[in-house]
């Protein structure tokens, strides 16, 4: 539903494959001929098997000096000692083996390393920088002949052009970027920039950066690369994207692994409508497949769910602004899902919310804003059915339920919820549009914080 970071391996692979297709007219020189390989060693696959297979598929691995580094969407790998240069395959295997599954902490996130990229080691002198960023009115393309890890320090040497959406990329528009390059490389790098831009547009990239790329025997060669795709365009780029994005779910989980020890609250929200002020953030190591397919394939409705804490170590938003209303995101439905969809969705949320009871109180917030068109009674029917199914689990996890909702048929929906509370004997409070969501959250927090 938005911009998705993709692995370095995929960025390079997409560029290599599609440059060839897209720039036949530009020139042969813009084609990339680098080999690369991604080794994903997970689960029961042993390192040895993996490498043997890999070498069969990619014979260049055993005949080339290699570079290996984790390929998991985090940066500063060099500074963390996670990049090794000029190794042979055995050394690469050893390097991977030593680091596979090792927890690293990056910007407060901790997770084991699971994926590496292996590529040829390329001795080089010149390091160029190229980035393309999509903005509202066009694209910003930046180029520098002083790329590499010192790019921040040399930012004044970066040349930038803004290409408006309605304008095509031409040699003239590209000229200011490469004007100062020596003649013998100017044409080649100009073609490469135009080629990279063509790939960027054709595959709906929203961000692309090569820092650095170099020339090997006069041919452009990206050494490090980052990319972001606009996954709303997946329907246009179906074949290209499926592979990248599916593979990526595992990577995104790394991003979402946080260790919050702010407090011991367990707050789950089932919100309807976009209540940005109130979204709980969760985390999980397991993607919810059933939900995923439900969300993406079958319905025009929007059902979003991100689990941030698999063990129910939850945080609260007793934040920096006093009692800040601001809870994080986690689960949201909108766009009028039907009862069956909500039922399945609620089952997933409730399973997560009631997992691993620890004797402490938990709170479940159901509802959200005043719906524009989502039928509250119908969606609540689905939630009521799920709550009934999970009655014992709810009781075991000492769940307190808070409901707040407005919109079509909300009176009926709220009445059903009230009746359900009495029927199940679970603490359940119900509010309509007259109460604010923020107030309800405060109550939920108070309830959980009380020692009883």
């Amino acid at each position, binding site marked *: 539903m938005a911009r998705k970071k993709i692995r370095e391996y995929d960025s390079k692979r997409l560029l290599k494959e599609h440059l060839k297709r897209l720039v036949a007219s530009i020139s042969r020189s813009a084609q990339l001929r680098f080999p690369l390989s991604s080794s994903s060693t997970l689960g029961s696959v042993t390192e040895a098997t993996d490498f043997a297979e890999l070498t069969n598929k990619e014979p260049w691995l055993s005949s080339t000096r290699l570079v290996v580094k984790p390929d998991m969407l985090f940066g500063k790998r060099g500074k963390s000692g996670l990049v090794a240069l000029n190794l042979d395959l055995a050394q690469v295997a050893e390097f991977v083996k030593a680091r596979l599954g090792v927890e690293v902490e990056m910007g407060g996130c901790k997770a084991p390393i699971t994926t590496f990229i292996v590529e040829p080691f390329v001795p080089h002198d010149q390091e160029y920088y190229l980035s393309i960023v999509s903005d*509202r009115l066009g694209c910003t393309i930046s180029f520098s002949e002083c790329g590499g890890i010192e790019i921040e320090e040399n930012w004044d040497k970066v040349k930038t052009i803004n290409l408006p*959406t309605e304008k095509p990329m031409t040699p003239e528009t590209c000229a200011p970027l490469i004007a100062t390059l020596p003649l013998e490389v100017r044409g080649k790098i100009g073609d490469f920039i135009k080629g990279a831009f063509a790939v960027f547009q054709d595959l709906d990239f929203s961000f692309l950066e090569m820092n650095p790329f170099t020339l090997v025997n006069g041919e452009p060669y990206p050494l490090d690369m980052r990319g972001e795709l606009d996954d709303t*365009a997946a329907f246009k780029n179906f074949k290209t994207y499926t592979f990248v994005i599916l593979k990526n779910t595992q990577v995104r989980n790394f991003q979402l692994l*946080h260790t919050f020890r702010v407090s011991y609250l367990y707050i789950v929200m089932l919100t309807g409508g976009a209540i*940005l002020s109130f979204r709980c953030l969760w985390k999980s190591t397991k993607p919810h497949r059933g939900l995923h397919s439900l969300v993406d394939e079958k319905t025009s409705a929007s059902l979003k769910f991100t689990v941030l804490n698999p063990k129910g170590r939850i945080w609260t938003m007793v934040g*920096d602004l006093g009692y800040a209303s601001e809870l994080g995101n986690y689960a949201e439905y909108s766009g009028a899902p039907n009862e069956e969809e909500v039922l399945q969705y609620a089952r997933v949320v409730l399973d997560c919310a009631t997992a691993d009871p620890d004797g402490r109180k938990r709170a479940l917030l159901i509802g959200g804003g*005043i719906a524009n068109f989502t039928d509250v009674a119908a969606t609540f029917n689905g939630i009521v059915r799920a709550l009934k199914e999970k009655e014992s689990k709810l009781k075991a996890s000492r769940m307190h339920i808070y409901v707040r909702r407005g919109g079509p048929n909300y009176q009926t929906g709220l009445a059903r919820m009230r009746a359900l509370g009495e029927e199940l004997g679970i603490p359940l409070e119900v509010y309509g549009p007259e109460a*604010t969501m923020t107030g309800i959250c405060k109550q939920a927090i108070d309830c959980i914080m009380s020692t009883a």
Partner: protein
Amino acid sequence: MATGQLFSRTTQALFYNYKQLPIQRMLDFDFLCGRETPSVAGIINPGSEGFQKLFFGQEEIAIPVHSSIEAASAAHPTADVFINFASFRSAAASSMAALKQPTIRVVAIIAEGVPEADTKQLIAYARSNNKVVIGPATVGGIQAGAFKIGDTAGTIDNIIQSKLYRPGSVGFVSKSGGMSNELYNTIARVTDGIYEGIAIGGDVFPGSTLSDHVLRFNNIPQVKMVVVLGELGGRDEYSLVEALKQGKINKPVVAWVSGTCARLFKSEVQFGHAGAKSGGEMESAQAKNQALSEAGAVVPTSYEAFETAIKETFEKLHEEGKITPVKEVAPPQIPEDLNTAIKSGKVRAPTHIISTISDDRGEEPCYAGVPMSSIVEQGYGVGDVISLLWFKRSLPRYCTHFIEICIMLCADHGPCVSGAHNTIVTARAGKDLVSSLVSGLLTIGPRFGGAIDDAARYFKDAYDRGLTAYEFVEDMKKKGIRVPGIGHRIKRGDNRDKRVELLQRFARTHFPSVKYMEYAVEVETYTLSKSNNLVLNVDGAIGSLFLDLLAGSGMFTKQEIDEIVQIGYLNGLFVLARSIGLIGHTFDQKRLKQPLYRHPWEDVLYTK
């Protein structure tokens, strides 16, 4: 952008991709506001044309449906708003087509998930052609008392509660459609209400931005203050900060950027909207709130304090005498939809149709209460299905087997019988399957194929009244009625119809009683004594044996048997069976590519 009013009480829209509910809600809003014309002039539903019936208050109106954007724009030159309910796959292309119509000024895109690059094309085109794009990923917007886009502001109850049926003094713009509804309520509580509210949508690159609309509100004299609800992610709010700093906005602005919680998450987290990604300090809610506050906007300390901030700003304007008092009007009552009223238990309505044989509402269709899975899994045949759908009960296997034998025997009787002949002639005239089939079926009647029912009726009547074969046949003769089920064009007493023999053998083996058949045989014995061709034919055999089936199975009451014979069930059996053959003849002729049939002159006696 900038300039002022987008909508008025006479604004009309074209609605792309027919959706009954949002359009009805727009029309209900129109009625509530006392608009004279409906706000939807035309509907575009690719591939269909005609009219859609909708309510405008108590009355039903017909809104024209067009198959293309161009046709709709040409037919409704005064409609200048395009409301696009296309899916995310096709929203960009249809929006671009709409922007290219000279009559269209504003395009609202509802779909979530339009690719960024496509939206950028729309933005570029709209900018250079001075048009306005609202969305994608939005519910739309509303000008109180004048015009409403699609589902904006939700139900009628909510619209009344938020006083959106008449203009107030507050201009409101938010990213989120859901939150805008929340704020319409809040603003109605603490001010004289909304003048105009826009939800720009949650995408990274919205078609029009928060500041675009704030600057527009600044040019609308009736808007006295502006409320802005932003969210983390993106830098849209900074263009508003710039506009405030440059003194381009001279009305009070109350603003809140939600998502301050994101700071607690150390890495990037995607919130509900594509644009709400918490990356970078500049894009954080805190930074934006602070920048807005420093630029002169009224920024509360938290979302809860937002309401108070709006209230205080409004009261200050009120004290300064800058607010023109709103003339309160009582909105008319919207007639409740029958379905809603039924659902809430307020009214009841009689049904128009009653059905007892099948039900398709559950997990799987049921025939007379038997689910499709049992029918398939238990190896039922066509005879069982007939027994369920025609007789509403599961008959024993010998009965359903008998029904199947009847169908097989009656499926076809060659190309020369009148039904097949008609079908062949029709098929050769180039008509379709159904026409060819029914032209054959329409031949079935008292002289062709209709004898089974009559045979059953007369045999039953005679047997039940205890008439001897002699009395029955002579009685019929007196009345001038040929005994149905007796007589054959070719078959003779010494050359019986094979089909009749098969039926009789089956029945003697499986039926508990064959009294009606024995009676028919007695009748045949008598008629054969009169003429050698008066044999029991297949109609007579089926008719009499069916009586035995009904009576002998013990599953029908006397009244039920009378009714079955009366209604014409047995004719149904013949129609069903013969359809198989008639369909075969149609296919046969078509496969053989036979030309139009013309009866030869030589074969007609032309006479005076």
